């Protein structure tokens, strides 16, 4: 019920239209009863009674009724469909906006396929509910109650007899409600799983092909597909059980009318004419009762979906802007880590990290694979929050800043290059959508990407595939670098940005970077000594701790890890040239 209340928030701004639509439904229900009435008059009065004078007016009335009814109907349905579309548009909007606010932890836990299911299949279910189920439920209720009232007016005893069935229907409906809920839950889950299997197969198609795992993938898919099918069939078993039952209950009214009505008539408690009327009204009781099953079905399905959707909309990211935050449009760029530790679950990833990077300084971070380099820099943008200690920018704890403003002051090229299926220009200007083409070209040149871009058939208008497939690793990295350079922020983070480019290109990029990063606080993660040696400060990370720090010369003098890496990289070369 909570979820229905939640849905109501979305409907209530349009409740006048909804009520108007329901009003039209009511009017139409009345008009549909006028039609057989007029037909009756024509048959009895004109054909049987021979009163041909009233034929023309009756036929005109007959036509008029239907024309009005049809117009109403069109308006009615249009309003319902339109309202439902607006409602789901708003729900989708909120889902999307919630999705965008979630922190990285959320995406580590939730699979793309699951989120996709919420935003498509679940939303579609809600649409159906608003456009159709609400109105049908109303129509059925009106029909049922009005028929009962009329019947009660005609003969109370027989109506009471019919009433006996109502609690039975209530019980059946209640039991159906209970048993159908887990079934829908299952269907939803297996759909989600199917979604994930297919989605990963599509995204990982290169790996699938490289290992010729097509048949394995097909088996995996078949299992998920079968599970989804079985969940659906399992679901149909519930309504296979209840729908015929409700149907029979509805039909049993006719039997009751015949037998109880017959007895009452024989006993003189009602007239034959009254019995005929009862009989002709029985459909008005029958039809809603038959619908009850389907209505419950669809409503519960919607509730299952609503719960999921509501949960996602209401999911609050753990990382957010404090209510009282500091407004500072442009920060200067001093970054300080003060006793920072970070754990992922139970695993300690960073252990008591402290360092200061002054404005305009460059800090290099090197260390073994998985030593926590990328984690360290992602803490600066608050992609994760520190477990212990604090990070300060311009001497203020980053948690005090407006999150968006904070991130706007940091530009980043990630190790894991993600490109959107858009033009190259669109990808470079992703962070600054209104950048001029000249600016885009300029940063592309700085990242040494311009040359290969213009060699492509459509140059900057070339559309690259999702994740930039079709480009080489080095090309992708250079586009990501250009993207980071375009947003001119005081803090620049380059996470292993040149690992896939050759040393010559890297050298070129380094030279231009010096120009670009002159007044910026820069963080560079790299494996090559040549990439880090000019930095003001080099941090060596090992198992989440800073084990060495200093300038290139200082570290060489120290003779530790850094020196060892240096020797390996140098030594190899010396041997060759010797």
């Amino acid at each position, binding site marked *: 019920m909570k979820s229905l209340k939640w849905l109501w928030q979305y409907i209530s701004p349009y409740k006048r239209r909804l009520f108007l639509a329901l009003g039209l439904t009511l009017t139409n229900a009345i008009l549909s009863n006028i039609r057989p009435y007029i037909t009756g008059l024509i048959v009895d009065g004109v*054909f*049987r009674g021979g009163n041909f004078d009233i034929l023309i007016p009756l036929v005109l009335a*007959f*036509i008029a009724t*239907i024309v009005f009814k*049809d117009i109403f*109907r069109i308006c009615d349905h*249009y309003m319902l*469909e339109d309202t439902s579309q*607006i409602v789901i*548009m708003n729900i*989708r909007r909120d889902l999307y906006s919630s999705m*965008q606010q979630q922190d990285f932890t959320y995406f580590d836990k939730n699979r793309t396929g699951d989120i996709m299911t919420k935003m*498509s299949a679940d939303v579609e279910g809600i649409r159906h509910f608003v456009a159709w189920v609400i109105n049908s439920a109303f129509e059925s209720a009106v029909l049922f109650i009005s028929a009962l009232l009329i019947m009660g007016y005609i003969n109370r005893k027989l109506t009471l007899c019919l009433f006996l069935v109502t609690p039975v229907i209530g019980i059946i409906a209640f039991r159906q409600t209970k048993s159908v809920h887990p079934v829908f839950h299952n269907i939803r889950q297996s*759909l989600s799983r199917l979604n994930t299997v297919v*989605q990963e*197969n*599509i995204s990982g198609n290169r790996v699938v*092909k*490289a*290992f*010729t795992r097509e048949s394995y993938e097909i088996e995996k898919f*078949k299992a998920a*597909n*079968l599970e989804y099918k079985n969940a*659906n069939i399992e679901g*149909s078993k519930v309504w296979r059980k209840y729908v*015929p039952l409700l149907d*029979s209950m509805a039909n049993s009214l006719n*039997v009751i*009318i015949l*037998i109880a009505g*017959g007895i009452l008539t*024989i006993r003189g408690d009602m007239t034959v004419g009254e019995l005929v009327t009862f009989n002709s009204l029985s459909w008005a009781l029958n039809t809603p009762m038959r619908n009850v099953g389907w209505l419950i079905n669809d409503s519960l399905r919607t509730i299952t979906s609503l719960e999921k959707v509501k949960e996602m909309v209401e999911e609050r990211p753990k990382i957010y802007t404090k209510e009282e935050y500091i407004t500072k449009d442009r920060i200067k760029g001093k970054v300080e880590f003060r006793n920072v530790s970070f754990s992922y679950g139970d*695993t300690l990833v960073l252990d008591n990290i402290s360092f200061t990077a002054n404005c305009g300084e460059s800090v290099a971070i090197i260390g073994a694979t*998985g030593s926590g380099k*990328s984690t360290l820099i992602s803490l600066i943008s608050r*992609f994760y929050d520190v477990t212990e200690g604090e990070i300060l920018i311009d001497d203020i704890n980053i948690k005090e800043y407006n999150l968006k403003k904070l*991130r706007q002051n940091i530009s*980043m090229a990630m*190790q894991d290059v*993600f490109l*959107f*299926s858009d033009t190259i220009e669109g990808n470079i200007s*992703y962070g600054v*959508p209104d950048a001029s083409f000249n600016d885009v070209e300029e940063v592309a040149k700085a990242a040494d990407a311009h040359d290969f871009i213009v060699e492509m058939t459509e140059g900057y208008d070339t*559309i690259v*595939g*999702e994740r930039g*497939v079709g480009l080489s*690793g*080095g090309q992708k990295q250079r586009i990501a670098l250009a993207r980071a350079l375009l947003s001119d922020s005081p803090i620049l983070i380059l996470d*292993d940005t040149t690992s896939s480019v*050759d*040393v010559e*290109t*890297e050298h070129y990029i380094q030279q231009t970077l010096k120009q670009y990063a002159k007044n910026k606080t820069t963080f560079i993660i790299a494996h090559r000594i040549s990439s880090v040696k000019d930095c003001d400060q080099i941090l060596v990370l090992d198992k989440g701790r800073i084990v060495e720090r200093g300038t290139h010369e200082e570290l060489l003098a120290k003779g530790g890890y850094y020196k060892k*890496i240096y020797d390996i*990289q140098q030594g190899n070369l010396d041997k*060759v040239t010797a």
Partner: protein
Amino acid sequence: MARNKFDVDEKLEGEFNFGHLKRLLKYLKPHVKTVILTLFAILSSSALNLLSPMITSYAIDYKIPQKDLAGIIFLGLGLFLIYLYNAFTVRYRITSMSKMGQSVVERLREDLFVHLQTLPFSYYDSRPHGKILVRVINYVNALSDLLSNGIINLISDIFNVAVIFAFMLYIDLRLTGIVVVGGVIFTIAVFSLKDKQRRAWQLHSAKQSNLNAYIHESITGIKVTQSFTREWENQKIFEKQSQLVKDSFMKGKIIDICIWPLIETVSTLTTAVVFLVGAHWIFTGSITVGKVIAFTGYVSMFWNPIMNISNFYNSINNAMAYLERIYETMDIQPTVRDVEGAVEMPPIKGDVEFSHVYFSYDEGKPVLEDVSFKVKSGETVALVGPTGAGKTTIINIISRFYDIDRGKVLIDGQDIKYVTLNSLRKQMGVMLQDTFIFSGTIMDNIRYGKLDATDEEVIEAAKAVCAHDFIMTLENGYYTQVNERGSRLSAGQRQLISFARALLADPKILILDEATSSIDTQTEIALQKGLNRLLQGRTTFVIAHRLSTIKNADKIMFVDNKNIQEAGNHEELMAKRGHYYKLYTAQYNLSAV
């Protein structure tokens, strides 16, 4: 097929394609028996249902005036039995139709998925993945009801129309003529809307697909979005796409909404004419009152099934938009496939030869021209050269991810064009720089290289690539759950896992495309020690930028200008003082600190 992005509509098909429907019927074929049985159940129960008003009126007209209580109860029981039978048929129908509908959908989806597996990289590279996903999941689902209940309803409605029509004919030919005229007018009206309606729904499905693609990309690219604080911009784009979906939906829906009233209006006018003409003929005495009354009864019954049929037609029209997309995908023939009479590739020794190979992605734009080289079994070959020179193209050709335009690629002297793709690729290991981690455990991810590998084998492979140590530091070791894109693992760690995966496959030819770019120096050194042992007996192709990796290779090929400019080992090429020498010394000088 042109490249596509999220806001580009997929192209629409011009004509209503009956061929699509015919292909769909193929899926119903195994269920003909079910359809017939269900139809029999439905029709028999509706025939019995026709009896029930007669029973009631008989009771009211005769049994009640006679005060025959037993007779009434007897008739009541009769009614009850009819309803019981009815309930039984409803139950049967639900069972059989849900089974049939789900089975058909299952098959259709399977066929689509299996076909997708045969499509080349370029198919996946040239469109947003969300657009492929929506076809396999949402579009196929949309067909399920149509294919089960829709078909049954259609047949039983056609049957009803036929029966009622026969009754009308029997009563009066002339009056039936009027109804036929009404029917014809209606059919013309519906058909004139048909094209508009179909186009509207086509447009809607395109917009929906765009929206889905955008959602998909937004989720997968969320890190970039957040780091560039593009949320607001994206929200606006999303809302615009969402609005387009709504608008296109309403455009289609308004036509749907109008069809029902259209029928009702036509039916009303027809009935009105029947009244007027009937009255006139009663007046002139050319028809009896009873006949007119009976006829008007049938006329009102006649339009109901017609309405249902047109509703079905509506749904078919909507579904066609989906069906077109599904079949469009199924009809794409993979460009690289087994030639007729392709043989199994025998166990590979590892000799690789390119003989005058020409290749182009787009016609008229050659990427490789007259490339020839020979690699002996067990050799390690490093490919170097500027970005975009065609290094990756060469290794893709070895795995036959692309077919060449001219020339021959031979492995152990066997032209790879004439062997089955599966038997060829199964013996090669490709490690791409694009690592992909499936959701599941690390164990599962490594085992992907060899599905029947034991845990020990997996661990051994992980040890060989120096991945074991870091895996053991994770909370559940090899059983740690990772997810797509392995968000909890660093890029270097993911490369190590992919490496272990490739090694576990124990390929005879190993291809490493920038496989170790994100791995730190020390790990790489350790890795290389292990590798030297592992690479023994395998032909290995390496694309890398690290000089250390390159210079240890048995053979270095310098690729530029669509061909191999130089080949030889490090010493030979250095002595030659050509391209490689230039590249090496330049890099050396830059690296020297």
